[in-house]
């Protein structure tokens, strides 16, 4: 499979609105895994929206990089996990994992960033 790259940019304010809105609980449950939500909590226990926004960007970047991932794949099947060395990695499950296997790709890598009002992520599938 040829190298494929996905990139996504998210306005952090949109995530703030989702967290403050009337559909907060469903938003969190349908988009992020419990592990992702916990990883985004600050020292006082509150969810830090810029970190959540970066994870949303990672999911969208994965959809752009992995053929077929934009269809019938729940966002929770594309999970950003901590890799134990201070960085992050992607853990795909369900249909997302099937698509990765079907693509013949051997590796998938992710990088997150956030500054000010934006968060972004890049995903490479090779």
């Amino acid at each position: 499979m040829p190298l494929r790259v996905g990139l996504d940019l998210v306005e952090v304010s949109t995530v703030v609105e989702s967290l403050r809105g009337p559909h907060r609980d469903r938003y969190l449950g349908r988009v992020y895994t419990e592990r992702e939500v916990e990883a985004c909590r600050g020292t006082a226990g509150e969810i830090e929206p810029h970190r959540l926004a970066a994870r949303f960007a990672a999911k969208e970047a994965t959809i752009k990089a992995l053929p077929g991932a934009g269809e019938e794949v729940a966002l929770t099947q594309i999970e950003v996990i901590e890799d134990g060395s201070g960085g992050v990695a992607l853990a795909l499950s369900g249909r997302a994992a099937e698509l990765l296997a079907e693509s013949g790709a051997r590796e998938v890598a992710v990088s997150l960033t956030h500054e000010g009002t934006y968060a972004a992520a890049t995903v490479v599938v090779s």
Partner: protein
Amino acid sequence: MKDRVRQVIKDHAGLAADVNSLPDDADLYRAGMTSHASVNVMVALEDTFEVEFPDSMLKRSVFESVDSISTALEQIGVAA
């Protein structure tokens, strides 16, 4: 149902245009709905209509217009 769908879109799609000025088959993504906004629309629809879209309906085309959203809701049991 379409009136309630339009209200959800108005509240959550982040469109610059007035949703009530758009035809039922207008492409909401072309009208400015981002991927994150489409997720907000999805969860708002689920809470509003007390349903959950199955994975098979998690497609860009399902949330593309008032018509496509309404059709999907009917398919999962929401009365027209």
